């Protein structure tokens, strides 16, 4: 089987600055992969390189069996969809029209009303992400979580087999994070899509992604494998600098992690240092 995405000995670089070397990854069709790591370890750079936004300094990126640079931009967008880290600027768009922008790579003529296939793709994407009720509303009337689902609908309308998402849950509240990941998971499972997403929340990664790739500063990829196997307390302490307890989720049977505090007092008063600092200041109260 041809891998959906393959990186061979890639050197990741952003503006001439090398971020990681010797990156080799192989993602098969239908896999769901989370990229984890602390800030500044090159997660976004890795994802942008996979998307073709950034050129690797050396090495080779293959997409659906072809070298990335052989694709025309439009043809590339029919194979992979990419949501960079969110900036919410384009709020005047009506949800329906915004999702329809995802049809650009397929459109024969961008000035004409959509063909039936285009409209169907838009409505299907809206139904899959649960945004059908808001199709005629402007984006600015939606909450952050709802908007994020509209973005997802847009790239689903793109009908690309590979989805690349950069921190899709970052600005969402808890409800938004969970429902977004559930929607994403359902869509990928039912449509057989391949997913590579950057996440910060280790538990979301364990819960929703079969496989995790972990980046560490200066060291590049330090782990690549099933989430439950990779994210051991020892490993998390080594890479993220946090002591965690590992438990088993009563519903899913997956492991989940909770931060450990050295003593109960620390857990109760995480701001101890800060408070003692305040007391040193005159007129703090």
């Amino acid at each position, binding site marked *: 089987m041809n891998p959906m995405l393959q990186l061979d000995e890639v050197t990741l670089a952003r503006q001439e600055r090398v971020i990681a070397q010797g990156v080799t990854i192989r993602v098969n069709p239908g896999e769901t992969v989370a990229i984890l790591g602390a800030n500044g370890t090159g997660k976004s750079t890795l994802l942008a390189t996979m998307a073709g936004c950034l050129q690797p300094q050396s090495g080779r990126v293959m997409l659906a069996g072809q070298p990335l640079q052989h694709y025309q931009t439009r043809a590339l967008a029919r194979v992979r969809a*990419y949501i960079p880290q969110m900036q919410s600027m384009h709020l005047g768009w009506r949800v329906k029209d915004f999702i329809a*922008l995802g049809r650009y790579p397929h459109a024969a003529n961008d000035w004409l009303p959509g063909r039936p296939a285009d409209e169907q793709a838009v409505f299907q994407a809206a139904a899959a992400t649960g945004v059908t009720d808001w199709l005629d509303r*402007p984006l600015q009337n939606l909450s952050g979580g709802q908007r994020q689902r509209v973005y997802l609908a847009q*790239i689903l309308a793109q009908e690309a087999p590979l989805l690349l998402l950069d921190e899709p849950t970052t600005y969402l509240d808890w409800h938004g994070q969970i429902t977004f990941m559930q929607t994403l998971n359902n869509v990928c499972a039912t449509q057989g899509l391949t997913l590579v997403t950057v996440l910060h929340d280790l538990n979301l990664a364990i819960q929703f992604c079969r496989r995790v790739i972990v980046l560490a500063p200066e060291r590049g990829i330090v782990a690549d494998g099933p989430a439950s196997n990779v994210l051991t307390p020892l490993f998390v302490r080594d890479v993220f600098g946090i002591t965690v307890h590992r438990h088993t989720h009563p519903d899913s049977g997956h492991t989940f992690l909770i931060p450990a505090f050295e003593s109960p007092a620390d857990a109760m008063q995480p701001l101890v240092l800060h408070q003692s600092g305040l007391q040193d200041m005159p007129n703090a109260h």
Partner: protein
Amino acid sequence: MFFADSSRAMVVCCVALVVWALGACASLCFGVVAIPLDGVFWGLLWKGLRGTHSGVGIEAIVWDVRVPRLLLATLVGAGLSVAGVTWQALLRNPLADPYLIGTSAGAALGAGIAFLFGFAGVFAWSVSAMAFSGALGATALVYRLGIGPASTQVTERLILAGVAVSAFLGAALSVLVAVRTDAAAPLYLWLMGSLLGRGWAELYQLLPPLVLSLAVVFWFAPRLNLLQLGDELAFGLGCNVVSTRRTLVMAASLLTAAVVAVSGMIGFVGLVVPHWCRLLLGPDLRVVLPLAACLGASLLVVADLCARTLLMPTEIPVGVVTALMGAPFFLSLLVRSGR
């Protein structure tokens, strides 16, 4: 693709066309020599359309002065508005207007050299040719210095380079004016933006670059739609960001340069009309661009009519009229959108 339920756009477009038609009739009739809107007038129009008007008296006033000026106002208004929409989308900046990235400063310097050093009289088109070259030259310089090989923060770099180049060219023009103060009066009039004395020659000069650049901008409108979402998102959706931006910067610069060369600096149209259109119809440029062209054309025809007739027989520069009309209108939009 887009959804074809744009009835609102059609309504706004029709209103704009009606305003244009009324303004056009008034422009042809009103003036120092008033022509009643009756059989004589229509006969006159018909004669000219067949190419058999005599070129003297009232026929000359209509066909050699008012008709070309009306057409020029239409095209200049449409061109400025489309250029404004394009720049605001390209630079993702609601404060952008066609003059932001050095075009106007370059045109002013070009026209300044023509006026101050006596080229203005050599050929009828000396001033506009110099202004056109100056505008294109300045924009090319801004693009080269601002973007160059850089791939990040492109819009910010373009704006900053535009501001710096504009400041430099403005200073250079001031030096020239200081040297030739005696010859500066026509330059000031030109800088204010006016269609006074423009005729068929300017119209023919404007037409080729205008048609070419409008065609490019409209053809690229779906790509510009994506580009205004941000470089990375646009690229993800299949838009070749670098070549699209390069093409559109060239087209918008050509458009602005062509318009500025024949009309001078007519302010506010390129800023107000795009905002107004987006407020009415949302951000989809496939709707906004045609509508901006219609609205801009109507607006400038009406503004030019006012410029000619309000203080008859003295003429106010049309750039002053657009600013006087545009600024309060823009502020009212601002106040209402804040509620």
